[in-house]
């Protein structure tokens, strides 16, 4: 609680009011990240409206099935993270294995993505092919890096839970990490339809 209001960007909520999960510093970071992705999405939309044919042709080359599989993996991981937070808040068991399982499931995404990159690259597509592939490679790789960071955060949380650092009395660290992971997941939920379906 004290951590939450430390930055005093807003008045302390009255007791009983809904509170932001996690640390406000983590949320400032999340909003800044969302702003980065948001501007890139706008750039994508503008570029697509200027040259729909290139974007249509580019989409045809992608593997929507792998994209769908990756989406399922990230959503499942998010579900596991959300339930692990719930378990910790109610001081129940099963927090740690859910986090480890979330990391494992999210690896389906990382492996799938690497497979896609290798596949496309071997067919001669890269960042400089055209505007569609510039956005495809840059946006998805930038997101990929965020997934890796998210996985590192989940691993740190799992280790800390294992060490008994979190007992449910202070949810700040767990909620901050989980919020970051959900941000990564949320971005993909926009990216997937935008690149694989609508383009």
């Amino acid at each position, binding site marked *: 609680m004290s951590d939450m209001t*430390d930055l*005093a960007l807003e008045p302390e909520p009255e007791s009983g009011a809904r509170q932001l999960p996690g640390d406000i510093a983590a949320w400032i970071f999340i909003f800044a990240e969302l*702003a*980065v992705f948001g*501007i890139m999405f706008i750039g994508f939309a503008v570029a697509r409206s200027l040259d729909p044919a290139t974007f249509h042709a580019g989409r045809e080359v992608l593997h929507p099935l792998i994209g769908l599989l990756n989406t399922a993996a990230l959503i499942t991981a998010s579900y596991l993270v959300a339930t692990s937070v719930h378990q910790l808040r109610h001081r129940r068991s099963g927090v740690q294995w859910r986090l480890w399982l979330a990391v494992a499931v999210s690896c389906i995404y990382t492996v799938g993505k690497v497979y896609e990159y290798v596949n496309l690259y071997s067919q001669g597509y890269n960042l400089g092919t055209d505007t569609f592939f510039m956005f495809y490679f840059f946006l998805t790789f930038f997101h990929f890096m965020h997934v890796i960071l998210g996985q590192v955060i989940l691993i740190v949380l799992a280790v800390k839970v294992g060490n008994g650092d979190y007992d449910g009395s202070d949810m700040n660290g767990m909620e901050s990490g989980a919020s970051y992971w959900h941000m990564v997941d949320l971005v993909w939920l926009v990216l997937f339809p935008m690149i694989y379906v609508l383009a």
Partner: protein
Amino acid sequence: MKYESQRVAMPYFIFALILFAGQIVFGLVLGLQYVVGDFLFPEIPFNVARMVHTNLLIVWLLFGFMGATYYMVPEEAQTELYSPLLAWILFWVFAVAGTLTILGYLFVDYATLADITMNKLLPTMGREFLEQPTITKIGIALVVVGFLFNIMMTALKGRKTVVNIVLITGLIGLAVLWLFSFYNPGNLATDKYFWWFVVHLWVEGVWELIMGAILAYVLIKITGVDREVIEKWLYVIIAMALITGIIGTGHHFFWIGPPEYWLWLGSIFSALEPLPFFMMVLFAFTMINRRKRNHPNKAATLWAMGTAVMAFLGAGVWGFLHTLAPVNYYTHGTQLTAAHGHMAFYGAYVMIVLTIISYAVPIMRGRPYGNSNTAQVVEMWGFWLMTISMVFITLFLTGAGILQIWLQRIPESGEALSFMATQDNISLFYWARMIAGCFFMAGLVVYFCSFFIKGQASFDEEVRGAAIQDV
């Protein structure tokens, strides 16, 4: 001042301020040369004056950063400096080498300077801002390595704080990126990449870490806000600075030959570069509003708020004005760039160094609560004169830039005015900028005068808490 060895910061600060004065003198010379083309020709041609103006800026800021580091690191680590002697030796090496280099620029023509410093053995000269003879570049590298050794040995034996870690990370980045100045490929496009790896990644990358750390340190001292709160802000700010700043380098790659995707990447990431600066404004004002003490050194508080605001305006807003590729297509290399450069350097780096000087120098002079009220009032006059003058310099250059773009860049070929014809048309703005520059010089003189006013602030002026309590 808790540790005697912190006092080694003093010569660094004094020398920095002397070079600062030199920089402004040459700024005035340049300002006049814009409108009176043959002023001081052939003794000091425009290109030489410009080289001296920009090199003095870089070198005095480095002296300022080093002084700040020597002052901050022992206190943060709660231990004496590893080797005050090494700090003194490096001070003299750097001061003598820096002075000789500037004298070389002024009294020897550049080609001869290249010859006598044996540039042929490892050619690195001739590039904007990196004009220093190779031997000076090697000297800077050695001084920085010795400095980092001294600082890291100090930090490692004492308390590890986030401020120290961020500061030292920034300084290591500064040292590592400097190495790119030694690589000078023959291909001009390739050369520009490496050149920007020094120039951009310094000022829009690692220097922001140094600035953030100094600002955080001063805020801890003058507000008494819990260190944990300030550290959290610092982390978020530097993360944003690096996320936006590193790929933001792309805004320099628009027209130098690399692939087209840099137009997108450069535009998108640098559009977000104002964010960390905006967060610094929130940071400074929030911390000062939530202060647990009223530090009697009000001048330092003013500088801390000023640097955050002016950095946001100069680096953030004025940078954003011309950072998007479709805009930059017209504005590239116009006076708009000069407007941005002036306010950004002043707001972010000049003012942060003056902030730490304002806080630390009175303490080193045996005035733990700051200078006397009179001295602070004079210092604050200096602050306002210099800052308002810089706002006007920026506005006049912005006006000059917009008119330049309108006359020279927007019209279709054939209708566009030539470069020199355009310059004649915007000379009124240059005259106005010259006047603002004179006011800046006056502000600097007032600021210097504040150092010669005797007396100190008293403990009674502290309303809550003790100004020198351990935090």
